[in-house]
């Protein structure tokens, strides 16, 4: 079909970040199709230079408001790796609770507030407040509040945690608070399953699209990995040598983007909830599996739109896992511990964990005074950029005969499905059809 498309849509919304989609279609042929990142570069790696070992967490937390707990934990793990700091079993459990809380907060924000309106053909969730579907909105709000309540309890604040420090915590929740959290989590689990049912029954679901690609994330023999694990790939398997992650991941510069891109065995790969699901689905909790089954999500699934469903399944998993973790805290008796001792020394440390949007790596080199001389952060969204580009290149020819509004919406929804991170990468999404 010979078709020219000339649309210019500004300020496409409900995506975290400044990015552009440029599509130039002449006589049915794609002249230009680019996923551009126009976010002002913030130079965090440079900002860390010269800063003290105990300031690094607090600075890198500010890379992202949504995944500040994840950045804090990757940062602490890297610094602790460099200084050989041991953490206690209790700290280990509390950090896992923190990472669960953040994953829940971020996932429900994305699935409930950002992606959900597309399924109901709305511009935002606000109109739901005065509609017959108000109940669904209240479920989303309840689940969002639950996740924030949990972050507050464990970290002292929902955004930019205060209590997470080198070797431990400045303060910890009381038994009474944890008992209340348990009650809320149990009620939240029911709500999650109800919300999943609502999405299944009341919407048409997500587009049917498929592109084979590589999925990368952490895996652990013990559990569905978030806080700890080995780098794993659906193409090449486990990679144990975490300190040489840069032998595994190749980050590279592209002119249309202020965010670096990344590749491994193919020209692109995906990280995030769907990647974790594809690698570790057998270790999901029962409720997590129940949500996945409801939408026929099975590993390996090559539809990036299903990332939304993988997020919802992870939300249910995080709740069940948190309930187990709290019981373990009770079994061990909660103690007022001093944070781990350490001596300042020269060295390099690497910290890796799974944050809502995928595998996050912090890498610091410290000098003999404990000041940072070199830093590198590998951000999940940056690892996804090349994959988004490749998906677009496959998707556009498949929907080229559709009305232009439909093409536009599908491209937006594709980008949204990846849940690109507000500040790790983008600020504004301009879909530009030149």
């Amino acid at each position, binding site marked *: 079909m010979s078709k020219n498309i000339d649309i210019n849509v500004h*300020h*496409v*919304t*409900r995506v*975290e970040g400044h990015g552009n989609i440029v599509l130039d279609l002449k006589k049915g042929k794609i002249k230009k199709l680019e996923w551009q*990142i*126009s*976010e*002002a*570069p*913030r*130079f965090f*790696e*440079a*900002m860390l*230079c010269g*800063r*003290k070992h105990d*300031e690094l967490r*607090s*600075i890198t937390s*500010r*890379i*992202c*408001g*949504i995944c*500040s707990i994840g950045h804090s934990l990757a940062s602490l793990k890297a610094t602790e790796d460099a200084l050989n700091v041991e953490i206690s079993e209790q700290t280990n459990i509390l950090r896992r609770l923190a990472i669960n809380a953040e994953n829940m907060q971020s996932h429900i*924000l994305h699935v409930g*507030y*950002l992606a959900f*309106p597309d399924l109901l053909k709305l*511009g*935002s*969730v*606000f109109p739901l*407040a005065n509609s017959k579907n108000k109940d669904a909105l209240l479920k989303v*709000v309840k689940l*969002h*509040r639950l996740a*924030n309540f949990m972050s507050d309890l464990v970290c*002292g*604040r*929902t*955004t*930019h945690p*205060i*209590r997470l*420090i080198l070797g431990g915590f*400045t*303060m910890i929740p009381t038994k009474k608070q944890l008992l209340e959290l348990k009650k809320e989590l149990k009620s939240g689990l029911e709500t999650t399953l109800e919300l999943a049912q609502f999405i299944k029954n009341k919407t048409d679901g997500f587009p049917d699209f498929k592109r084979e690609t590589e999925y990368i994330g952490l895996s652990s023999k013990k559990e569905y990995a978030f806080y700890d694990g080995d780098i794993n790939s659906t193409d090449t398997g486990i990679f144990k040598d975490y300190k040489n992650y840069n032998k595994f991941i190749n980050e590279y*510069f592209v*002119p249309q*983007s*202020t965010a*670096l891109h990344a590749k491994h065995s193919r020209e692109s790969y995906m990280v995030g909830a769907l990647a974790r699901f594809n690698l570790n689905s057998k270790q999901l909790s029962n409720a997590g599996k129940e949500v996945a089954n409801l939408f026929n999500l099975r590993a390996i699934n090559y539809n990036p739109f299903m990332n939304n469903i993988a997020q919802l399944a992870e939300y249910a998993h995080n709740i069940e896992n948190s309930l187990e973790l709290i019981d373990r805290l009770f079994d061990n008796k909660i103690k007022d511990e001093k944070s781990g001792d350490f001596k300042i020394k020269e060295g390099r440390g690497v910290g890796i964990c799974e944050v809502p949007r995928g595998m996050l790596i912090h890498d610091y080199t410290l000098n003999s005074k404990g000041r940072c001389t070199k830093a590198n952060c590998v951000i999940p969204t940056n690892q996804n950029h090349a994959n988004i580009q490749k998906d677009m290149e496959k998707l556009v020819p498949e929907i080229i005969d559709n009305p232009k509004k439909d093409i536009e919406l599908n491209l937006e929804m594709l980008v949204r499905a990846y849940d690109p991170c*507000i*500040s790790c990468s983008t*600020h*504004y999404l301009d879909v530009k059809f030149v």
Partner: protein
Amino acid sequence: MKPKVAFFDFSSCEGCQLQIANLEEEILDLIEIVDVVSFREVMKEHSDEYDIAVVEGSIMRPMDEHRLRKIRSRCKTLVALGACATIGGVNKIRNQWPVEEVKKEVYNDADLKDNKFFNVSQTKAVNEVVPVDYYIHGCPINRDEFKRVITSLALGKEPVIPNYPVCVECKKNENVCLFELGKFCLGPITRAGCGAICPSNGGACDGCRGILSKPDVECVMDLLKRYDLTYEEMKSRCVLYNTGVFNPKDGMTFVRRRKNE
């Protein structure tokens, strides 16, 4: 008529806008008194007609300055939201070095010439580009303070922003002074309004709400002496949120940030 409010974001972590989403059901109360006409993070609808512009983030590039001036020309009242907007925040840490050096650190030898996305200047707070009417401080902002400021503006009242040190709120919370616990806290010179949230959770104040317009220099000197701390250490701590706030020629004096203080 309800005032029309629009939200905009520049270089930041967008954590301050997130605090608005974190109001949960209370957002619905807020939209009873104001009309949200633009809020990219959560809604598709957008309008260029607004009374109050709420701006998050620091200003880094000529293209961003241009966009900010346009926003200023369209609104009656401009509110700076969060540390990146009010004082430049952590984004100013890099202002210690020339831009070219910083670029090299992150992007190595990539060719960035003629690429407008990379046309970066030193980090600026919003009031270094356009006049700002009101400030909602913090990293991140305090949700209750946000509600208070927006409600005041909607009712045509002057919002009150504290201009006394974090120590006042910290004492009220009955915390043990962090200096006594061997930590270095910027509470004595930092603007309150956060409810001393960091010290109350066992963390030292980093000064994210900005240095007081008239900090008690004598008291600070006394503190440094009493706890055997150095002025250099204090300057280094202030770099986190308040790069450039010390007058380099004048020793223990602070550069005033705004004319109206």
